């Protein structure tokens, strides 16, 4: 049976799709058979970040409407044999997903995969609720910034009240992933620190991804950033996946680079 994990945040633009692509790829790199589903119907982007946009023939909504079967819609990753992508539809209306049909698709996938990663759309509307409804675990992607933290707290509330596990009186297991972290600004008192965000949200920390040029470079090329193992963001995602699978790894990239003597005296 597969484990269903939702990547969610409430707020848009914080790194959900980047994280979904990196995390799913990371699990696959560690030998787990993984499928990543784009729930953002109408605004599909996961295929671009994963670099398979030209191979999309059928999508999630086609499968739901039985216009195609899962085998036809699943796209095999071009680098990893045990990683598949189920793209969102680009043109259909937002309410194209219904609970029973989504459940049927997830059940079919669960027979075959170790992990099902659900890339949630932003907001708290149907699409986002559908992405989180069946989740057993959730990765809350948060930026160290007031509106993102607030929206994450809202999504946490929805997870623990509107998900299937919540309806059964159980809890969805939560993980905090802090992205776009800038240690230099934190040291200068201009940005909320990891400790601040952890304290406010009270969710166990899975990882901290530093603000990094590698993320844009990776999405430009359609290669999940975790493949860029020279980069800080790639390594931070690798740590997060390893930690998720039970490795003990210290958190890195939390301290600003030490400035040279001249910079310290004259600023800059």
């Amino acid at each position, binding site marked *: 049976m597969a484990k269903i994990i939702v990547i969610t945040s409430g707020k848009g633009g914080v790194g959900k799709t980047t994280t979904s692509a990196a995390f799913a790829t990371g699990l696959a790199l560690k030998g787990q058979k993984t499928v990543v589903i784009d729930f953002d119907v109408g605004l599909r982007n996961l295929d671009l970040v994963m670099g398979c946009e030209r191979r999309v023939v059928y999508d999630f909504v086609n499968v739901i409407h039985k216009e195609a079967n899962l085998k036809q819609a699943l796209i095999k990753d071009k680098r990893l044999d045990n990683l598949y992508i189920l793209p969102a539809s680009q043109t259909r209306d937002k309410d194209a997903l219904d609970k029973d049909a989504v459940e049927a698709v997830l059940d079919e996938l669960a027979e075959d995969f170790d992990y099902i990663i659900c890339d949630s759309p932003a907001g708290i509307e149907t699409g986002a609720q559908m992405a989180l409804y069946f989740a057993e675990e959730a990765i809350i992607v948060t930026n160290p*910034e*007031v509106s993102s*933290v*607030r929206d994450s*707290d*809202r999504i946490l*509330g929805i997870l*623990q*009240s509107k998900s299937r596990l919540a309806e059964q009186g159980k809890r969805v297991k939560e993980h905090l992933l802090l992205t776009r972290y800038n240690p230099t600004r*934190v040291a*200068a*008192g*201009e*940005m*909320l*620190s990891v400790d*601040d965000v952890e*304290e*406010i*949200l009270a969710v166990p920390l899975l990882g901290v991804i530093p603000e990094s040029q590698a993320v844009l470079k990776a999405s430009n090329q359609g290669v999940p950033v975790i493949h860029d193992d020279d980069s800080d963001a790639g390594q931070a995602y690798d740590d997060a996946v390893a930690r998720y699978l039970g490795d003990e790894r210290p958190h890195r990239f939390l301290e600003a680079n030490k400035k040279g003597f001249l*910079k*310290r*005296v*004259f*600023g*800059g």
Partner: protein
Amino acid sequence: MSLMDYFRKEQTSTASIAKERLQILVAHDRVNSRGPDYLPKMQQELLAVIRKYIAISDDQVQVNLEQQGTASVLELNVMLPES
């Protein structure tokens, strides 16, 4: 911290302002959205009952629901005006 920074008057860090604002906001949001659905309405009705006897404003009544182990504690704080 560079030498120049010592001459610039530094106020409270903006990060600590953000943290303080968030803590207040999140606590408030949680009462409204995570408590039972009836909580906001009950708060309004309690306020209406108290107003029958005492003239108070909205911010003089605080309703908090706290989880303590298996029990929930409903805390009602009414600030009475000096008469």
